[in-house]
């Protein structure tokens, strides 16, 4: 049998309450050892009990204890949750007592892992729970909840079912070649089906980028020559009354200079080698290194000086950021206009000195990332790296399918790659049975001799 694990389930800090969760075969017995109140060993499942946590005779805290008995629990094991008062000291003390009485400190995510291992939730759902725990914003939380509910699993299941029907048709043509009342699926029939599968995978992938944004926020880099007003711009944005400035630092791997929430999505301004230090980033670190920064960022704010002509380096960089989400900003409109910029670049003219045009920048960001839509839409996005890489692999296989068609390969060869796409999608939700195909064959077609 498994051992019994315990952990503090609420964020450590001073809150109204904190919850300590215990899971495993001995969870009720162990909690009962440190509980003064009724006998928890005799308590029915899914009940709450008032009492005190005690160490020998000392009362540590006044608590509510919830009893959930196997198997209808999150991990399918016996679970006890202790609702304690929120101080760090008492919560820690209760945890210590549990560990002294035979619990092991749970590893991060171990409850979810047990739920998955015990077959309570599938792989995607497990990842959904993990994301829920790590959710940084309300939106990320909703996204995680959707994934946990299996909404995403359903999307993938539906796509797999579409593919399965195509596979079954090809296979039935192979196994029952003389059945003329079964449509012979030809390479020409296959093309639109493949386009459709590709479209759906691409949709999942482009949604997955949204998923990533909701979860991790948008990484913004401000680029520009020295004294063009990078730090002034940053300060103006951070000080814009509509923006809520957060103090999250180090939430991403990069050093975040400052963050605001825009429509509930974090905008994280990454430190472009010290924007605040008003050094000439382009000249100092060179164009090549600027490019690396450009690659890391989700959004580039490229700042130009209204008073000066666009330099060769700046032109070069504008070229480089063409394929990324970017906004060209012309600062210092309070000075004379000497800039010679192509209006097709759709620049925003601002003055950090007079705080003009800042709101326009924020609106442009909302437009670029469709933040209005994100807010209202059903949040069913793929948001973890594993699933995204599998989807990308599936897209590669679509290319293989197309090559097969181009090279006049017989349909049963082309099908090999389609089957692989179906298998890959199955691994996202953790299921791949060949039997499914056989069952589909017999339910979709009238066969027999």
């Amino acid at each position, binding site marked *: *049998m*498994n051992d019994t694990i315990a952990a503090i389930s609420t964020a450590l800090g001073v809150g109204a309450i904190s919850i300590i969760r215990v899971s495993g075969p001995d969870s009720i017995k162990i909690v009962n050892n440190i509980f003064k109140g009724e006998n928890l060993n005799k308590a029915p499942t899914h009940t709450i009990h008032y009492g005190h946590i005690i160490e020998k005779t000392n009362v540590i805290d006044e608590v509510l204890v919830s009893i959930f008995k196997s198997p209808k629990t999150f991990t399918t094991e016996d679970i006890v949750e202790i609702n304690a008062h929120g101080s760090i000291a008492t919560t820690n003390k209760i945890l210590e007592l549990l560990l002294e009485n035979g619990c092991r400190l749970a590893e991060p995510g171990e409850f979810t892992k*047990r739920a*998955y*291992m*015990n*077959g309570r939730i599938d792989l995607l759902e497990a990842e959904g729970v993990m994301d829920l725990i790590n959710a940084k914003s309300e939106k990320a939380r909703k996204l995680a909840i959707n994934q946990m509910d299996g909404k995403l699993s359903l999307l993938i299941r539906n796509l797999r079912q579409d593919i399965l029907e195509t596979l079954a048709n090809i*296979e039935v043509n*192979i*196994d*029952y*070649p*003389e*059945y*003329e*009342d079964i449509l012979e699926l030809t390479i020409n029939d296959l093309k639109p089906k493949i386009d459709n599968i590709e479209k759906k995978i691409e949709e999942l992938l482009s949604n997955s980028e949204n998923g990533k944004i909701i979860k991790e926020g948008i990484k913004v880099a401000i680029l520009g020559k020295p004294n063009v007003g990078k730090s002034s711009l940053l300060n103006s944005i951070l000080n814009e009354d509509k923006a809520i400035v957060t103090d999250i630092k180090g939430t991403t791997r990069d050093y975040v200079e400052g963050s605001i929430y825009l429509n509930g999505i974090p905008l994280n301004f990454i430190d472009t080698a010290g924007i605040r230090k008003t050094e000439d980033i382009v000249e100092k670190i060179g164009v090549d290194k600027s490019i690396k920064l450009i690659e890391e960022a989700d959004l580039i704010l490229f700042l130009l000086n209204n008073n000066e002509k666009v330099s060769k380096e700046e032109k070069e960089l504008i070229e480089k950021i063409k394929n990324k989400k970017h906004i060209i900003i012309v600062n210092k409109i309070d000075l004379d206009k000497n800039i010679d910029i192509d209006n097709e670049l759709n620049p925003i003219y601002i003055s950090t000195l007079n705080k003009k045009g800042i709101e326009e920048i924020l609106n442009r960001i909302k437009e670029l990332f469709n933040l209005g839509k994100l807010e209202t839409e059903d949040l069913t996005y793929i948001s973890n790296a594993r699933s995204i890489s599998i989807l990308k692999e599936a897209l590669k296989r679509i290319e293989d399918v197309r090559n097969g068609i181009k*090279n*006049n*390969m*017989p*349909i*049963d*060869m082309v099908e*090999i790659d389609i089957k692989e796409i179906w298998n890959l999608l199955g691994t996202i939700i*953790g*299921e791949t*049975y*060949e*039997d499914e*195909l*056989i069952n589909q*064959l*017999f339910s979709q077609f*009238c*066969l*027999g*001799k």
Partner: protein
Amino acid sequence: MNYDVIVVGGGHAGCEACLATSKIGHKTLLITGNIKNIADMPCNPSIGGSAKGIVVREIDALGGMMGKCADEGQIQIKMLNSAKGPAVQALRAQADKVTYPQKMYEKLKNSPNLDIKESLVEDLIVENNEIKGVILEDGTKVSSKAVILTTGTYLKADILVGSTRTRQGPHGERPSMHLSDNLEKLGFKIVRLKTGTPPRVEKNSINYEKTKLELGDDVFHTFSFDDKPNYKIEDQIPCHLVYTNENTHKIIRDNLSKASMYGGLDDIKGVGPRYCPSIEDKIVRFADKERHQLFLEPESKISNDETYGNTIYIQGFSTSMPHDIQEKMVHSLVGLENAKILKYAYAIEYDAIYPTQLKQSLETKLISGLFTAGQINGTSGYEEAACQGLIAGINASLKLKGKDPLILGRDEAYIGVLIDDLVTKGVRDPYRLLTSRAEYRLLLRHDNADLRLRKYGYEVGLINEEQYKKLNTKIDNMVKLKEYLKNNKLTPTVKTNEFLKSIGSTILKDGITLYDLLRRPEVTMDILEQVIEIPFDNEVKEQVEISIKYEGYIVKARKEADKMKDLDNKSIPEDIDYNKIHNLASEAKQKLNEVRPTSLGQALRISGVNPTDISLIMIYLKKEYHYDHK
């Protein structure tokens, strides 16, 4: 009486089994209920078909006889899926129901170590979970070191027609009444299965002008790797195609409750095959279909044969309706308005052993030395039966010699796929092989069965030196041809480029090897031969061409297969206690205990066992047994 091996049942499984053991040199006894029915084809008059045709090639490669008898007994032969890729092509012959069994019986009679006895086996002699022989219906004991049960549909067989149930086997033969009870007493889990067969009508009572002609191929084919074709293409006998119509469907719908399966009988336990539904099933389940195809297949060209000489089999029209309704149904078909039914359709219910009780060798887990093969294991089809009989025979022999069994991988043979499916997944309905069941069908082709399997046939003693030498010459020539293609170039002459243009290919600027040229989709070996001589025989050219044309796909399939093989090579000790593995899902635990897989690969193929369970087993094996399954 004392034998090395006793084979019980003279159907397709039994024939291959006793031929294998006797040919290898074991004193073998075949016990059959009626010698006249040896190698009989009680259902459809054809051998081969999609996937099944490849199995017949595999049987031949291993040294079995089905392919050779089918070649001698065929009355029409076709390559199915010839417009598709090489991986899915398969032969199907209309087989003569008189000649085929005759040829097989001749082989049995000529086999030196084989005795044949007419009797029914009612019990097994078992001591300490080891087989010692069989007891016949008259009480006679026959002892042996191994027994292979190939009883087909004869265990407690019931023929079902309308509302009548008659305890008998096909052709009104006596069924075996006590063997399945005695197997149950020994601890076997017995299941009840069902199958059916359509009516046969008199050859001359059909108006063929109202039917569509179905001819055989106009190129030669043989199942066997050894024999040359010995038939005249124009001597092939055609089949004919007709359709059901609204009237047929109305008759069936109006009388549905009279069919055994739809209320005619209320005590049916047997599960019928999904791939071979009755016409009632088709009309109920696919109500929107306006018509169904029916093939009229001649059963024999020996027209003076009492049983089969004059009959046409209506493929697709299997039913369990009472006789009077069958008359109406048949007469509703265009072309068969005046057809005379010579044999009515029936369904048959029979006992089978639940196949997860078998090892991959087809030896039962319960009783050492007892093997089972064919329909008793829950399969359906002559080819599925024959290949199991062959493998059971080979493995009984290997066991007597104290050697490891021959277990074919899923990437080596359809036979391997079939047996692995049976013993790993069990059966719900009678099991039929389908191309879709093979994960790596590109490796399991019709054309390369000899390259895949002949070596095993040679090792066990079913393939002789001469046959083996022929194989090795073929392999050598394939290597030589590849070199030839790599060493010979076409140069960009005006003539060459004109030729390339004429076949829609890109013209040359530099010289190109024949090998690279063949990689172009539009260039085939045949086309190439129009400009340059390729001095190798057709079989060799075919192999090399496939390996060049489909190289990318073959490499991919091989890679996938190796991944699976990797897991298949991770063995699970026989004494593992799944109850001791933490967190194993209870469904997985139950299935694992039932199947007792021998490898992690096999475990993963059990439905209800998922990758997480495999990881848990792996961790457990590492901890408890110090297995390092990386």
